[in-house]
């Protein structure tokens, strides 16, 4: 048994310790957001936050993850209480098929946590790891910019509260 801390809850899992985290999230914990794209850490569809760093979950065995804080897209907001980035992706309609979207939002979240006011060039450089085939790149960039602007406004009102 390995205790995985996912989205604020502890889940004891009995999967083989060599199982990549992605399969445990999807198959064992039944979380949909992280997607299998390549299994090679080349595309970003499976990105999750591990201790606030965006990493591909498709090549990361769960063996080393006990005690780490794992956050998936579901942990950033769901249903009626969506996070700032999720709202921004809806506002910009930054998806077509949406298969890459979870990875995009998770990846952007890591940037905005570290740097809530990135330049356009920094956003672009940070998102370089994630592939989109429908070609919604311009919308993704606008959505991350919008979320960043929203965070700035919120921080002026309440410096503690604003989370991406």
């Amino acid at each position, binding site marked *: 048994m390995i205790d995985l801390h996912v989205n604020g809850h502890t889940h004891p899992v009995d999967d*083989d310790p060599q199982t990549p985290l992605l399969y445990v999230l999807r198959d064992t914990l039944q979380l949909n957001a992280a997607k*299998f794209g390549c299994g090679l850490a080349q595309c970003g569809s499976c990105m999750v936050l591990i201790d606030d760093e965006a990493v591909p979950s498709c090549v990361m065995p769960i063996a080393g993850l006990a005690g780490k804080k794992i956050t998936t*897209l579901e942990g950033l907001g769901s249903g009626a209480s969506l996070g700032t980035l999720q709202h921004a992706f809806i506002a910009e309609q930054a998806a077509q098929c*949406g298969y890459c979207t979870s990875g995009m939002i998770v990846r952007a979240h890591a940037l905005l946590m570290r740097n809530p006011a990135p330049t356009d060039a920094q956003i*672009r450089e940070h998102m370089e790891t994630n592939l*989109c085939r429908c070609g919604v*790149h311009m919308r993704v960039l606008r959505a991350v910019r919008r979320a960043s602007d929203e965070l700035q406004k919120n921080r002026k009102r309440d410096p503690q509260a604003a989370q991406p």
Partner: protein
Amino acid sequence: MSASDDKVSRRAVLAGGTALVVSFSLLPALRARSAAGSGLPGSLDRAPMLDAWIRIDEHGRVTAFTGKAELGQGMKTALRQIAAEELFVTPDSIELITADTELTANEGYTAGSHTIMDSGTAILNAAAQVRAIVLNAASQKWSLPEARLRADNGFVVSDDGKRVGYGELVAQRLHVAPSASSRLTSPGSYRYIGKSLPRVDIPAKVSGGVAYVHDLRLPGMVHARIVRPPGYGARLRDLDASKIEHMPGVVKIVRDGSFLAVVAEREYQAVAAMTALAAAAKWEQPAALPEQREIFTHLLQQPAQTSTILDRGTPAGESEPAFEATFRRNYQMHASIGPACAVAQSKDGVMTVWTHTQGVFPLRGAIAQMLGVDQERVHCIHTEGSGCYGHNGADDAAADAALIAAALPGRPVRVQWMREQEHSWEPYGSAMVTKVRAAVKDGRVSSWQYEVWSSTHSTRPSNNAGNLLAAQHLAKPHQQPPPRAIPLPDGGGDRNAIPLYTFANAKVMHHFIPAMPLRVSSLRSLGAYMNVFTTESVMEELAGQAGVDPVEFRLRHLDDPRARAVVEAAAEKFGWSRRTRAAGHGCGFAYARYKNQSTYVAMAVEASVDRSSGSIQLLRAVAAVDCGQAVNPDGVRNQIEGGFIQAASWTLFEAVGFDRSGITSRDWSSYPILRFSSAPHSVEVHIIDRPGQPFLGAGEGAQGPAGAAVGNAVAAAAGVRIRELPLQAAVITAVTGS
């Protein structure tokens, strides 16, 4: 209801004399006639009963039906807008059922930018006719003339204050044959059509909701993985699977000829077992492919079926001076971000398949043939997948799932392909060669001779098991049927090969090559991408030779006012006449009307080329589009923006690599696509709306003009024109000399 029932029911209804009086006001949307020539608008003739498209239950709840599928293009939102508009209800009150062989009309494939044109037109008209029936029923109920009634958000209201719900008036009473024409709402009073309503599917996609077939988890479901042969034509010679059978979680190994799969309780157990099984399998593999560097020569040496598709005036003879150029396009792939997936279950004599195919009906026929059962024994339900952009691995994964589920009766089986399987087994967009010979006289094209060579652009399932990968690998294999050219006006390799310009003397020949050394099928826009790339590259070059501005040069040869309008709009919004001219910097233009009969797109692109490294940077793109009545303008913009980015990726970076033994593009490092750093600084899309005009579709119109405008901008910036796609590597070689 199925399409075959409909004919019987329609006849019964007509014989029963149900008289439907619908007054006629023939708006232009009705001109989108069905191809079958029944006179019914759009796809209505595919299921000529109103309740095949619209149903209203006793509580007034509205369900709309479409035989088309959501591919990420936003049709679930747009079709609700259309139905809501004519039913006088809100879009969010409508449930929409998409492609399902037991529930919806058979509308063939969701392809060719036909969804709004065919299904949207059908739903528009069906909804309008249902509203007429509702009003007529209220009129009879209250003995009031219809002029004193109005439909209002699910109710009919009379001018003296009476009110009754649609459900009470017409529940279960819509099994009625449609008329050829409908009393349509005037575009001036549209409330939903023409509005950028937010997509209904995006909230689930930004929050981890169940959105894809990949996310289905049925009770008792097991996971399967396929072990594919190492390359085309390889045969499984020997397999000792005894150790793999005892690996953790393994439920079954399925082998039939060279079709090999493993099933396990958990997904990663299936992946681990697949890896072990692949290592244990011994294959016999012929060296089946030509050398990549000789692929174009190889293709041109194959027998071809030649047809002359345009012969106008007297093109210049061989001896007269002319511009001549040959263009080449390498094989390119769909390269979906999510590998193909399907879930299948064999239960009570029916094989149910949840699939992200583009065509549930033609897939059903193919799977039934593969399994040796009647079509009625197979039920295909469209469930969203990763974007497909044409015929990718979706249908083959569905066949895989069905074969495995047949071996495990009762248990739902989920199959997902691995990345290298998607890259190396999907059917690619065909390599193509085009050749132009043209002459200019007095600033106009005086002669245009065009030839295109291509393999087929469709090996879709089409009710034939031979088109399914798994079926080709069985011990008793199904043979792939001989490929056929897709006839014009849509065309395949010759799509958009006929120039849209008013050339007095022009000849166009299509050389259809039945051979297909690499597996090929429909990739977004088929041959149009290459034909528009070629035509628009040459137009830009001829304009340069004639000393005429490229936009002005195109306008000289365009009569169609809608064509002129997009060209002029793109040029103006881009600031074409004031464009930057500097070393290493270039602008390019392109125009096409997709399939010569649907959406008009013009594009202008600015790019730079680093004159020391040869590195290309796209700077900005401006598009003007006329797709007739735009249903959801932001949806149109999203398609054109995305089409631009994808076509730019094809044009700059993409070629399927292979050697004698197989495909070498097996992941994202061996088949790179455009990443954020290569996206331009801006992509602007300007829609020229045409209220009340027929829907023309928006999904593929950008591909040709985008590729060509990028090519023209790069040629201007690099100072050298590359005529083989993709461009980036060749531009580096040309600029750096290495």
